[in-house]
């Protein structure tokens, strides 16, 4: 069953990769989409049909697992067994990965229409799905890491899809290298886990982590090689994959890839792998307050930082890219304050609305004949009604307007940040402030994007002559007219609009699965999402004694008692009262405060929208500050501080001295030695085979004679 989920995209990728060249677009589209569809349907069946009715395991987590084979057997000891498992966490992930993935596949059949290596694109895309599913469903760190590297590879391939453009190739390399830095952290982390725990199976590791004592807050824990070190190493990997400070620089550049790729990989799925990993390892992170603090700070900073850059970008996709970085920051912030369920909730809603926004922007780009610069758009509302309205849903969702999906998840993060007890005193307030400010900024830059793109005057013909730095690797310009003279943008084909519509619906209503208790509790609506995810997150959590009656349940959620009894044996274990319950905020805050904060965030969102509308409606071409437009010169700083020195050391030191003088010298010297020896010995080699035979014969006789003298 699980194998089918995993294998369907692989089969698709194989077929397309090997035979796709001969197929027509229709067939390729059918194969690619149907393979993902099979995967998605199987996933839905597995989650809703099997997982929900499965009996909880001994640790209270429902699991559907499938053992594939014994992997890496060394001297009779099985290092790891290779298997797949669906539990609530990976269940949610697999649902939206396959679901959104399927929609984006469908979208891409329209978007990529006419591309000369259509089949290659879909082969990569299917391969990506396969790797992503491995990442999510693998039941051990190693298999997850295989998927982790695999999605990195596919990301590289797809960013560099238009490899004839230097920009795309450079971006691909940048993404790959930035990820490598992070992957190194993951490798070290996994090795450390194996070293410490003796297993890399998630279930075993988490059970092990649950038995470990709480680590202290401070530098000493970081360097101690315990859980904090593991957590930080893993987090380094997450910063690479999920584009956090300081490794976020690759994501905006990755927009050089085709737009469906940006939507699928660089917004909805792959970049959330870091969040997934942190949540998956929540038992480890919970025990490592220093790591949590780092995660929260990095997350909060990234969110704010990227949002400020997002305000100043002209490329429509770059805006969305920075927005993604910013939203990922939110998710890490949630992780950092111990609100893992909120993080995953935001991952899901973000997947809906960000995929929607990206696909919408793809639709716009498609309609504009591969123009990505917002300065040359405007008034598209008129021409692209469907795109406009669907994107509006995404816009409102990301701004956090109530009912829309983004509201619930973002608000939950803000509230949890404010109310957390996992961090020492001033941090929750500071981070909350930062996050709220970010929420305002988010609303502003998204409004700017919508306004500049869809409202105002038409600016299609203001393009300067040297415009060819965008989007022409596509090989798709069947319209016979270029820029510079008037043309009309057109609405996208049905295959693109339908996914947009589906995603729009999801963006609007998708958040209702996780309605906070204070809103839904009165009318009997539970926070289903959190309840579903609870057991996974509860694994290994120590619950402070005073919360014994409402264990692990978030702020007073009245979950069915039976489930919680089974949820976590550890949860009821006596624990040190001083240990903060990371995921369960103290009940000291009143409901009123929560309502107030919720209201504040709505106000912030609305303010941002109004501000944006008012300001950018008047002067859409407002010149942003250079510092922001140039992205704080981070790339330049990296160039000067890291890349150049490495290059110089490599060239001057490693190449000119170590390689040329020492390595080559040794090799050449060995060669010269052998040549000299050969020069003298070659007289033995006459070329007559009989002479050689004579040598052998003499040798044999002498050898036997030798054994007469030296009797063994």
């Amino acid at each position, binding site marked *: 069953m699980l194998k089918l989920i995993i294998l369907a995209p692989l089969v698709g990728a194989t077929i397309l990769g090997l035979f796709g060249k001969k197929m027509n677009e229709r067939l390729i589209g059918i194969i690619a989409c149907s393979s993902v569809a099979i995967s998605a349907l199987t996933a839905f069946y597995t989650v809703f049909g099997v997982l929900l009715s499965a009996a909880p395991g001994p640790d209270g987590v429902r699991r559907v697992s499938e053992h594939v084979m014994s992997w890496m057997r060394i001297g009779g000891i099985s290092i790891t067994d290779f298997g797949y498992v669906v539990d609530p966490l990976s269940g949610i992930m697999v649902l939206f990965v396959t679901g959104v993935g399927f929609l984006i596949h469908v979208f891409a059949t329209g978007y990529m229409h006419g591309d000369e290596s259509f089949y290659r694109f879909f082969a990569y895309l299917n391969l990506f799905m396969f790797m992503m599913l491995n990442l999510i469903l693998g039941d051990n760190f190693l298999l997850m890491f295989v998927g982790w590297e695999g999605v990195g590879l596919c990301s590289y391939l797809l960013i560099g899809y238009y490899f004839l453009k230097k920009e795309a190739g450079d971006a691909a390399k940048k993404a790959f290298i930035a990820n490598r830095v992070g992957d190194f952290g993951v490798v070290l982390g996994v090795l450390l886990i194996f070293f410490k725990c003796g297993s890399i199976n998630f279930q075993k590791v988490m059970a092990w982590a649950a038995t470990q004592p709480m680590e202290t807050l401070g530098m000493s824990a970081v360097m101690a090689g315990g859980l904090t070190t593991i957590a930080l190493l893993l987090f380094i990997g997450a910063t690479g994959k999920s584009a956090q400070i300081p490794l976020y620089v690759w994501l905006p550049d990755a927009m050089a890839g085709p737009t469906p790729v940006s939507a699928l990989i660089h917004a909805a799925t792959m970049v959330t792998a870091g969040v997934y990993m942190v949540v998956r390892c929540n038992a480890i992170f919970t025990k490592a307050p220093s790591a949590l603090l780092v995660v929260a700070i990095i997350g909060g900073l990234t969110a704010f930082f990227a949002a400020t850059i997002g305000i100043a970008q002209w490329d429509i996709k770059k805006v969305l890219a920075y927005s993604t970085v910013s939203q990922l920051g939110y998710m890490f912030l949630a992780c950092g304050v111990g609100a893992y369920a909120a993080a995953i909730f935001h991952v899901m809603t973000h997947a809906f609305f960000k995929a929607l926004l990206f696909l919408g922007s793809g639709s716009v780009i498609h309609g504009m004949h591969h123009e990505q610069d917002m300065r040359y758009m405007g008034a598209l509302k008129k021409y692209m009604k469907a795109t406009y309205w669907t994107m509006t849903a995404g816009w409102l969702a990301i701004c956090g307007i109530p009912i829309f999906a983004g509201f619930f998840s973002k608000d939950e993060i803000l509230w949890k940040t404010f109310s957390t007890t996992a961090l020492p005193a001033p941090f929750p307030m500071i981070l909350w402030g930062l996050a709220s400010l970010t929420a305002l900024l988010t609303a502003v830059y998204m409004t700017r994007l919508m306004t500049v793109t869809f409202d105002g005057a038409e600016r299609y013909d203001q393009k300067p002559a040297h415009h060819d730095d965008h989007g022409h690797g596509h090989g798709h310009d069947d319209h016979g007219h270029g820029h510079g003279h008037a043309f009309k943008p057109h609405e996208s084909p049905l295959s693109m609009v339908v996914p947009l519509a589906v995603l729009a619906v999801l963006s609007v209503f998708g958040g209702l699965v996780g309605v906070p208790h204070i809103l839904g509790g009165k009318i009997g609506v539970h926070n289903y999402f959190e309840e579903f995810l609870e057991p996974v997150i509860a694994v290994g959590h120590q619950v402070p004694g005073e919360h014994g009656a409402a264990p692990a349940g978030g702020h007073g959620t009245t979950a069915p008692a039976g489930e919680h009894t089974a949820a976590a044996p550890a949860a009821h274990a006596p624990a040190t009262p001083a240990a903060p319950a990371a995921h369960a905020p103290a009940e000291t805050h009143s409901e009123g405060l929560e309502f107030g904060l919720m209201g504040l965030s709505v106000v912030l969102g609305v303010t941002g929208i109004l501000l944006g509308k008012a300001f950018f409606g008047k002067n859409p071409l407002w010149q942003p500050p250079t510092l922001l437009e140039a992205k704080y010169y981070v790339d330049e700083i990296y160039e000067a501080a890291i890349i150049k020195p490495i290059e110089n050391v490599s060239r001057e030191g490693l190449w000119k001295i170590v390689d040329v003088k020492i390595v080559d010298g040794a090799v050449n010297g060995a060669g010269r030695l052998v040549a000299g020896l050969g020069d003298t010995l070659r007289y033995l080699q006459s070329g007559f085979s009989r*002479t050689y035979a004579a040598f052998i*014969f003499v040798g*044999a006789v002498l050898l036997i004679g030798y054994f007469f003298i030296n009797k063994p």
Partner: protein
Amino acid sequence: MTIQQIVFIVFALIITAGGVGVLVQRNPLYSAFSLILSFIGLAAMYILMGAQFLGVIQIVVYAGAIMVLFVFVIMLLNVRDDELHPDRHKYLLYIGVPLGLGLIAEVFYVVTRVQIAPAITDMHATGTVGTVERIGVGLLTEYLLPFEATSVLILMAVIGAMHLAKREKE
């Protein structure tokens, strides 16, 4: 002297005569036939030692297949005698024969001096060692890997020989 010893001597003489024939004949075809004679003698030796299967196989494989191949090639190339130009390595004769004598002396020394406890007094025809069953079981159990390896070797030899001997198309 038992009858087996007489038989041994007779066939040892035949084998040796065949071997000498290989060395002294100038015509390769005569050499080949001398060797066949030698091989038939060896087959007789095997049967004398109770290895009936190998004895027959010796004739089937060596005399019946390998030597036919040799004779076939000799006839195909139709070379009558050694080529006439002078031997550049005459000295090999003067090295080779003494070396050979030395080797024989050494082996004789070993054979006469080293005592091996006589495990089985009657060496021939009593045991079941040489039967097809024993050899078959041995080949397909303990020696299965070498057996399979040699079959791969044969395959390679077949392909290699075909490739080498194939006349290239102009």
